[in-house]
């Protein structure tokens, strides 16, 4: 290799990836700052700390030769399963909003283990699919992939966390595109997934008891009251959140109301405005132009991830990059989609934008995985 040292470092860094992620982090910080204005102080600092902490797994994943991960399949599976089960372990987990999805030791909430579990799942599944050498063309092979997915989904549903379950399903589909799943198995898997999700929803105890007919009080009177009723009481709970989110985004118009000037956001009409619904704040304050800018950055990020997958010297690395791509893409679709009424409302954060350290650290770890694949595109150890 007759390359200079700087060239060799540059070779290991994917500049576009760093640029897009950097831009997203700045954009996200600005939006979190705007959304948390007037809320308890320190949230912005915590956001930035999350970014800083996230650099640790980024660098570690980058330094690790991803091809070595293949040899740790057993420990990785055990670790992933532990992450998903850990919130249920007495003394470790805690329950919030009906789901036991946080790790807590003493009174300190640590993180949501299902976030890093996504990366573990990607790495494990990449090895499984890669072992089929680009041909998932027998029922046995398909069943094997499906068994891994089902196992992960089953564990995540014990919390229960529908959103993360959907992410697992989605990224499996995306990875199987590259992994070479036979066309008709896609259909079978799709049907199986629908049945699985349906079963989970059927058991969902929070399923709304639907309100009856218009008796007693007249509709217009009831609605006046319901308009200001807070989401926790509203029998049409989700409907209210969705409506407020749509009003926020729609009212942003072409150019938005200006940073920090969103009335829907500042007057608390948008629920979870700095976490799951941060896109609503963005849409309201920065308008269509702000939203297009964000989607443009995401497009660049996803195409860069695709390019990295394409550059991988082996199928395993390509599948890891594809899994990360699938994870991000589905989270973008689901999160933005729910704020505009295209997708059901679930608690999935928007990558690099939402406040929340677990997701931030995980996403930066995912960037590390991409860099690991990229920097070893010419061969191990270089």
């Amino acid at each position, binding site marked *: 290799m007759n390359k200079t040292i700087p060239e060799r470092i540059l070779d290991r860094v994917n500049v576009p990836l760093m640029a897009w992620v950097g831009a997203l982090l700045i954009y996200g910080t600005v939006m979190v700052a705007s959304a948390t204005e007037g809320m308890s102080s320190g949230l912005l600092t915590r956001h930035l700390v999350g970014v800083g902490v996230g650099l640790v797994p980024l660098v570690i994943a980058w330094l690790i030769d991803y091809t070595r991960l293949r040899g740790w399949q057993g420990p990785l599976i055990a670790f992933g399963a532990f992450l998903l089960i850990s919130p249920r372990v007495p003394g470790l987990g805690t329950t919030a909003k009906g789901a036991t999805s946080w790790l807590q030791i003493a009174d300190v909430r640590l993180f949501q283990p299902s976030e890093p579990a996504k990366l573990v799942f990607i790495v494990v599944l990449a090895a499984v699919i890669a072992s089929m050498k680009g041909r998932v063309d027998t029922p046995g092979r398909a069943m094997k992939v499906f068994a891994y997915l089902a196992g992960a989904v089953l564990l995540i549903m014990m919390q229960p966390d529908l959103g993360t379950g959907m992410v697992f399903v989605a990224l499996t589909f995306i990875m199987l595109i590259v992994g070479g799943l036979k066309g008709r198995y896609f259909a079978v898997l799709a049907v199986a997934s629908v049945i699985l999700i349906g079963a989970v929803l059927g058991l969902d105890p929070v399923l709304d008891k639907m309100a009856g007919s218009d008796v007693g009080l007249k509709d217009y009177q009831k609605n006046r*009251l319901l308009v200001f009723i807070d989401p926790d009481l509203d029998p049409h709970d989700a409907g209210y959140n969705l409506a407020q989110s749509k009003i926020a985004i729609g009212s942003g118009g072409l150019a938005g109301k200006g940073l920090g000037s969103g009335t*829907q956001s500042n007057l*608390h009409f948008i629920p979870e405005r700095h976490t799951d619904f941060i896109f609503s704040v963005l849409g309201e304050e920065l308008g269509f132009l702000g939203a297009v800018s964000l989607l443009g950055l995401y497009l660049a990020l996803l195409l860069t991830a695709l390019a990295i*997958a394409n*550059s991988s010297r082996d199928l395993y690395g390509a599948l890891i990059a594809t899994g990360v791509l699938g994870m991000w893409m589905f989270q973008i679709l689901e999160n933005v989609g729910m704020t505009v009424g295209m997708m059901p409302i679930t608690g999935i954060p928007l990558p690099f934008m939402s406040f929340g350290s677990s997701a931030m650290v995980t996403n930066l770890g995912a960037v590390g995985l991409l860099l690991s694949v990229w920097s070893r595109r*010419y061969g191990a150890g270089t």
Partner: protein
Amino acid sequence: MPTISQEYRSRFGVLGIVVIVVLSALLVRLWTMQVLNGESYAAQAENNRVREISLEAPRGRILDRNGIPLVTNRSALAVSVDPSHEDVRALLVRTWSADTVDDPTSRELDEMFGEISGLLGVSTADIWERVTDVQQEALRPRVIAVDVPMEAIAQIMERQTDFPWALVEEIAVREYPNGNLAAHLLGYSGAISEEQYEQSDEYAGYELGDTVGKAGVERQYEGVLQGDKGWRRIEVNASGRSQGVVSEQAPRPGNDIRLTIDAGIQAATEEQLDLAIAESHRQGYSSARAGAAVVLDIKTGEVLASTSRPTYDPSAFLGGISTAEWEALNAKESEYPLNDRAVMAAYPPASTFKVITTISGLQAGITSENKTYNCTGRWTDMGKQWPKWCWKRTGHGTVTLRGGLKHSCDTVFYEIGYELYKRKLEELQATSRQFGLGSKTGIDLPGESAGRVPDAAWKKQYNENYPEYQQWLPGDTVNMAIGQGDMLTTPLQMALVYAGLANDGTIMKPHVLKDVLGSEGEVIRTIENEVLYETGVSAEMLGVVERGLVDVTESGTARAAFAGFGQTVAGKTGTAQVKGKDDYAWFTAYAPIDDPRYAIAIVVEEGGGGGAIGGPAARNILAYIFGEEQKTIHTTDESR
């Protein structure tokens, strides 16, 4: 290059397409929402953010003709429940859900409102009834108690954590400085009813929960008294909490109005009506509870006093009347105290009607002042099988028309009535209508009754389903001639008849509003006096009637009541027979004779004799007007 790109190019191509499709789908959706429909969403956001609260204007005051306040405003401390507070809302949502199963139990209500109920002395059931009142704007705090004592207010304010949903507000309420005085005429105000609210024409711009006039002058002059509402636009957050005022427009108070009522005459009239009812009881008429009295200025038609019994307390309506109280006021055994009998009730006028019969007979040329009649007590001109009795069963002997008025001799008027019947011209009805009977007077008060002047056409129609009763019979006119049978008049109508007699045959339109005042107290609108009827009765005929009526108070059926009275009064007693009830006592009069100014009508339901009950009351009302001494008079009267 040992990459896998060659082998997998098409798969990555598919993946790239998926990425682009997903992001494009979001882009299209955002374009539709933000660029195409942005304005509609922006309007919704504004609607979310800004809430308009209307500021009710203080109602105009109601004054008597001399400027003495009859109804004013004062501020009162009220305790309200905020329906938007989450605890209250939680219960409301359950109440309004289709399921009755999850309605709040009385135990839950007691838990929530039990303590404040004790502080305020209002039952939890009443509190909850008011909180769930749907006839109010959803966000409007529901007043649960008005005029709360300071100790209770202090407790509620200190213990906000115990009563986080309780609001202490200063609200403007009606004040009645004279208590129940003129309660019927003034009426009362209360929250607009759903029916009123839906009458978009008269109540355009009103909101549920607004205070409006419900009866009497309060209702009649609602448009003048109401004023213009102001508004305050506040910015609210998602929980409905105010974040500050965006803009504000102060309300314009309603106009004050001055009535034609004289507070002094009104008070005297009410006192005399009460004393008359008490006198009825003293004379053994234990059912006497109700009645009415009206005093008019005959030159202008101004109502100087108007009262009705039984009465009610208008302050019971402050802050909303409880269902129990409302039901009590409308129960049959209550004798309907909310009804203003002076204009709403129609009674047989009995002998007070004989002036009409007199004029009708004179106009027909079938009688004259000194024409003599022979009263044997029993009158059988219509045939032996149809005897009629004079109230004086032993008979008046030979009596003139004038004497007939003086002694209220029924036989005289049976004969006139029978003559009029035989002429078949319905002249008695025509004369009645000449004096406005059978029609509303058009007084500026709601709910006026027209009374009834019965005639052949009416009887036929009235007995539509009873062919055997459809024929107008001689007895019908004969009964009518003494103010009985199917004849019905309101006290106001009879007062107007006597006003017409006093005012050379001209009846002025009665009214209770004198003028409307502007914000500086200046007169901005005056009610013009109007002629209602020119009866066209000749001075000569009026003279015949007047001489007979003066005889009544000087030596006739009301002589005991008016003995020693300093003014010459033309009056007439009346004692109406009502099937299944004790006699109704009437007295109608005008005075003074030389230059008539006042007309009066008083009736006491089941009160007994007109001369014994009505006469003394009328005498003392006139005594007040003329500055004479009041006198307690116990007398009896058998005339009818």
